């Protein structure tokens, strides 16, 4: 019965997907993956009490190496996408089950469904943000008359359940974005400048300067970018497009010097 006493040759992670190794689902966010890695690492670490004497030293090294590899592949956006593609090609993973970084998708503003239209609009408030929140859980959490919500609430993700998000203005074609374009977008969204000032805590005069193309009144570039980002988020436009377009326009007017 010698073999019974002998520590068995370990079953390693071979044959398991990287998701199984870390015990996360295929649509886990990077945050979840980091947490899972920390937890599992605690099990296998050299100083771990839980797995004391369970593995030979080589086995432990091998397991830790596999674990680290799994983590490094899944935590990097590009390599994770490649890995997912490989799994999909092998038929092991469904496209819909993959993780998508939904935070960066533009928020649908007008869900033109019958029930939403039938429900009518509230009188005391500019409608868009409130109504857009119909299918988003986070928007409902904001009290109508509460002080300006903090920034994280504004950039919070939206469940991608609404098909065909309607965007207020398609900036796809526009290379450069002027203050007037900003204003048009805002008006289309039905957002008052005052509301932006309240929610973003940016001064009214600054917002007016941004919309009026008064480049001499604008703050240094770093601040301007931040302002534009918040502005874009409130009117539900793609922040990157607005920032890049606005700065391009500004630089072309000022003759290439920032």
């Amino acid at each position, binding site marked *: 019965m010698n073999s019974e006493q002998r520590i*068995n040759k370990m079953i390693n992670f071979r044959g398991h997907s990287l998701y199984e190794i870390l015990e996360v689902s295929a649509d886990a966010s990077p945050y979840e993956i980091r947490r899972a890695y920390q937890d599992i690492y605690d*099990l296998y670490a050299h100083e771990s009490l839980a797995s*004391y004497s*369970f593995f030979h030293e080589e086995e432990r090294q091998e397991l830790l190496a596999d674990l680290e590899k799994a983590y490094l592949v899944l935590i990097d956006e590009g390599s994770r996408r490649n890995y997912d593609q490989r799994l999909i090609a092998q038929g092991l993973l469904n496209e819909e089950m993959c993780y998508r970084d939904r935070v960066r998708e533009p928020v649908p503003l007008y869900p033109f469904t019958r029930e939403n239209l039938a429900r009518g609009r509230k009188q005391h408030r500019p409608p868009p943000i409130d109504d857009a929140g119909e299918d988003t859980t986070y928007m409902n959490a904001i009290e109508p008359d509460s002080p300006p919500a903090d920034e994280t609430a504004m950039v919070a993700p939206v469940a991608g359940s609404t098909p065909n998000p309607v965007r207020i203005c398609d900036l796809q074609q526009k290379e450069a974005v002027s203050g007037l374009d900003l204003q048009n977008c805002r008006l289309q969204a039905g957002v008052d400048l005052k509301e932006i000032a309240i929610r973003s805590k940016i001064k009214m005069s600054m917002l007016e300067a941004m919309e009026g193309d008064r480049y001499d009144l604008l703050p240094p570039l770093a601040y301007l970018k931040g302002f534009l980002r918040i502005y874009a988020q409130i009117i539900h436009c793609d922040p990157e497009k607005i920032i890049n377009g606005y700065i391009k326009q500004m630089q072309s007017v000022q003759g290439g010097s920032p």
Partner: protein
Amino acid sequence: MAIILPIGGGKGGSGKSFLSGSLGVLLAREGFRTLVIDVDLGAANLHTIIGVPHPRLSLSDFINKRVSTLTDTIISTPTPLLFMISGAMNNLDIANLAHEQKIKVLRHIVKLPYDYILLDLGAGTSFNTLDFFMISDHGIFVTTPEPTAIENIYRLIRSVYFRKIRKALDTHHFQNLAREAEERDPMAKVTNPDRLLAVVRELDPERGEVLAGELRSFQFKLIVNQNRKQDNPHIGAMICKIISRHLDLKIDFLGNVAFDDRVHNAVCKTGLFIDLYPFTQTVHDLRQCLRNLLLNSATAGKCDRTGSVNEF
């Protein structure tokens, strides 16, 4: 048919007897007819812990044929509904019990009419200990949160598990199948249940299912005893996770039992810790473990296939 719970732990002093006694008392107070048997044959202590300092009869009376049946060795304890078979005053050579005698004892144990039978086993992974684990699908493993105890508990769990698989192969006359599997894939050994099962399923799906059913029927449980405040309370869950990931064995964590200096006092007074210090964390933890245990055996079904002892 009684639910038989062998209680073992690799290391001496990890509290096997204390837990057997305490769980036995708590089970009896829940209204179950409970029997505790001290099968730590060379070093029996259990009688002292449950408050019977001088038992009249013991297991060796049955083994040496001084009494005719095992039932005659059962003595009552101060706790109603709790009965015990003591190991006290065993003959000095009883620690090396002959195989036939052991089988005889095991056969008699499974026939005893009780709700729960707890077996307090000795430390280590000797055949004496392992064979008592073969009596039932259940098994409670006791460890303390120390590397020494954890090292031993892993050894014990592995030994019991592999021995059970071997026994399962034997009872179904699968030895040829297992040999065939190993020829096909040298990794498919008893010590590598995952692989063995996969190869057996490939060779013979029907018998593969039988074997898989056998492996699933094991109901192992873990208790982390003497858990001090500064210890990691999740260590038990982590141990279970390691085992389920790498041995393909489901093991339930019943809970931590807090360390208490006063256990020593209770043992010195030969009184029940549960009665002397009823409002301590330790007693609370013991009750919690019992609740988890009852919950566990209720959900896991009552298919206790103890009849297979005959096939030793």
